[in-house]
């Protein structure tokens, strides 16, 4: 779709797409960086729904359907389950991520994210030389690059398991959009995305189950509860 429109070679400003991209990016940011877990999760569901819209806009209805089913419903439900919201019961008690973030971690992750953004940009630029002429034509592509960089940074930064799972999901969506955006309407790309979506949903489901189980068994919210202790030694 995007590529097809490129034939016209005229500089146009796709309002809807841009809005979508901005909304998605905002949702992604909230999802990634809000310490309130439920809010972040709900934001993610919103993100997934918006993304369904985006797939629809990009004329890949199958992917839209898959995103709706797998991304919004399955993943969302899984995450809510992990939070203990869905079937009411033993919820994750502190609904906030209360792990402190040392400054050095934050700075390094930020730096990494920025560099990754550069990396994304370079990749897109070299893969699609034509895009350099009209970067504004591909707001979703640009947004997806931002998601990827931020999600990776968030994944590396966060310790709370649910937030890492969220980061993974955002990262996945970003990658899929990038893939779709760069490869265009190829069936191969769609298949890749479909597989990716399935796997992401399965992974999220599995992760959510594990998070619940771990919390249930050990009261754990992070992978390395004793990291500070061991590093200090």
């Amino acid at each position, binding site marked *: 779709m995007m590529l097809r429109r490129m034939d016209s070679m005229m500089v146009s400003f796709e309002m809807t797409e841009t809005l979508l991209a901005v909304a998605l990016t905002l949702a992604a940011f909230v999802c990634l960086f809000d310490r309130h877990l439920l809010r972040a999760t709900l934001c993610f569901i919103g993100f997934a729904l918006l993304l369904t819209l985006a797939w629809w806009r990009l004329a890949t209805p199958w992917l839209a359907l898959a995103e709706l089913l797998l991304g919004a419903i399955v993943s969302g439900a899984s995450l809510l389950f992990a939070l203990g919201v869905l079937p009411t019961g033993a919820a994750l008690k502190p609904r906030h991520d209360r792990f402190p973030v040392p400054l050095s971690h934050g700075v*390094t*992750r930020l730096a*990494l*994210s920025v*560099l*990754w953004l*550069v*990396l994304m940009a*370079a990749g897109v*630029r070299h893969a699609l030389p034509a895009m350099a002429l009209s970067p504004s034509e591909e707001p979703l592509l640009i947004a997806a690059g931002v998601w990827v960089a931020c999600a*990776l*940074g968030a*994944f*590396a*930064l966060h310790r709370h398991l649910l937030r890492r799972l969220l980061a993974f999901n955002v990262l996945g969506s970003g990658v899929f959009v990038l893939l779709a955006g760069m490869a265009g309407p190829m069936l191969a790309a769609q298949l890749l995305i479909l597989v990716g979506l399935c796997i992401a949903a399965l992974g999220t489901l599995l992760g959510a189950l594990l998070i619940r189980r771990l919390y249930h068994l050990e009261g754990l919210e992070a*992978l*390395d509860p*004793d*990291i500070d202790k*061991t*590093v200090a*030694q």
Partner: protein
Amino acid sequence: MTTLLFVLALLWPLAVAALTLAARLSPRPEKAPGVASDLSLRFSRVFRPFSWLWVSASWPALLLAVSGEARWQWEGFMLGGLWELTPLTRPWLLFTALLWTLAAVHAKGYFKGDLTADFKDETLPERSASAEKRRGTFVLALFWPLAFAGNALLILAQDIASFYFGFALMTFAAYPLVVQAATQEAWRGGRVYLILAVMGEAFILAGLLWAAGAAETLTLSGVREGIASADAGIWMALLLFVGFGVKAGVVGLHVWLPLAHPVAPAPASAVLSGAMIKAGLLGWINVLPLGDVSTQGGLVALGQGILAVGLIAAFAAALYGVWQRHPKAVLAYSSISQMGMLTALVGVGLVTPEVWSLLWPAVALFAAHHALAKGALFLGTSISEHSPRWPVPLLWALLALPGLSLTGALAAGMVSKWSFKSALYEAEHALLIKLLTFAAIGTAALMSVALWRQWQRRQVGGSDGYQQGGWLLALAAALTAPLWLPLPQASPVPPLKEWWGLVWPLLAGVFMVACAVALLHRRRGRLPPAGDAWWLYAVAARALYRPLAQVGERLARMKQACVELALKWERRAMAAVQRCLFAEAWLRHHVGGLMMALALVLAALLMWEGGDFWPGR
């Protein structure tokens, strides 16, 4: 036939030793009455130590020596065996085997008491002490034939390996002969003997290796030729001279003789001083290029040195020996003195080779005579300590006879003295002859002292027919040596006008001793100890050892310190590793960041490598 005799001569002593051991190991009647059968009882009786069968160990060799010159070669033995009875070794083997036989006969009587003690009831109170002595006696009986086998082998051997084998066998098998008495002195004597023997073996090995390696030979004649022709011949010869010199009692290396001989039982002393000491001499004759007219200057110089050493021994031993208290020690010094004369003659063989062909029969005769006479003298010491109830003058005359003969005053001694003097006359060694004559004074003095010391220790009774028989036969054989010794030509009897020249040293020596006794017998001074220089050596060795030991200790401490340091470092390194491994947890925590970083680094590197870093070509 001769081959059979060869084999018998060498193997029979070994067989005797083995049978003696077997008899000992077979169950003894009194220990296990039910077990021992009649057969085994008889077996242990026939083969018990000091039986006739035991005495017969040296008979095949005797027979071989009597039967004439022979030669046998067998490549399979060690490095290739070559055994030969030459004109030189035949008389040598004869007197050696004879002395061993007679000493064995003497021993048969000498150890009679011990022998019965061997089967005595084992519940005696002084069991431990007597048991040790008894065991010493048994070990002596076991090693006696072995030592003889070695002695016979070294005489017969013409190849290096079996010569050296015989020499080593004799040397080491003689150790139990020395320490039989199991007393403090015996152990000390044995130790000195062994230390010097090992040193001697080492020198011999070095010399033989060098010489044989240089000449690529495996025979003794090859060694002789090799030394004569090699550039470094003098050094090889020196090594060998020193090595054999230990056995032959060259001055400086003689210290074991006066320490080991007095402690050994009389028959053992007899063979030690009579037969085994001659092995050193035979060694010289075998390996030094004596009589080789092509010898080089270096060897002549060595010969002169040998000559001097020999003469010094001849005099110094006499001068020192007369002060000894123990008759056997005196006799041991006499052996040193006599061997000094023989050493001097060997030196002559190097200095003036042309005379050697005349000289060697004289040397052989001298050796044979000295062997048997010294044997008789040593055996005589046991006679004087257990003297039979014979008329005293007769007994003491008989005891004195071999001594007289040794001074050259009568019988075989005179003949042997004359035979080398006449050879030396031909070489115009007037000075040497004069010196040797003077040395005879020393001999006479030593003999007188020995007799006197024996007199002081005389005891009556307790001797045995075998003891006396062995002694008397040895005496007779010594006095008649020129008659039966198979030398190439009959030894000349000295003309009458020379007689005085041979006799006066005896008188002089006896006179001097008499004067000295008369002058000094009131004085109660300390007599010099036997073994003279040994004590100096011991002090020197200890002085040398102490710093070495300190160095060794310091090195050991240093090593210990190094080890500890290494261990400390190891502990530290392990602790560091342990600390490092905590980083594993850090890595685990930061997988995500590291993954991002790796992708970035790889991308940056690849772009940089491609020359297209950013933003475009």
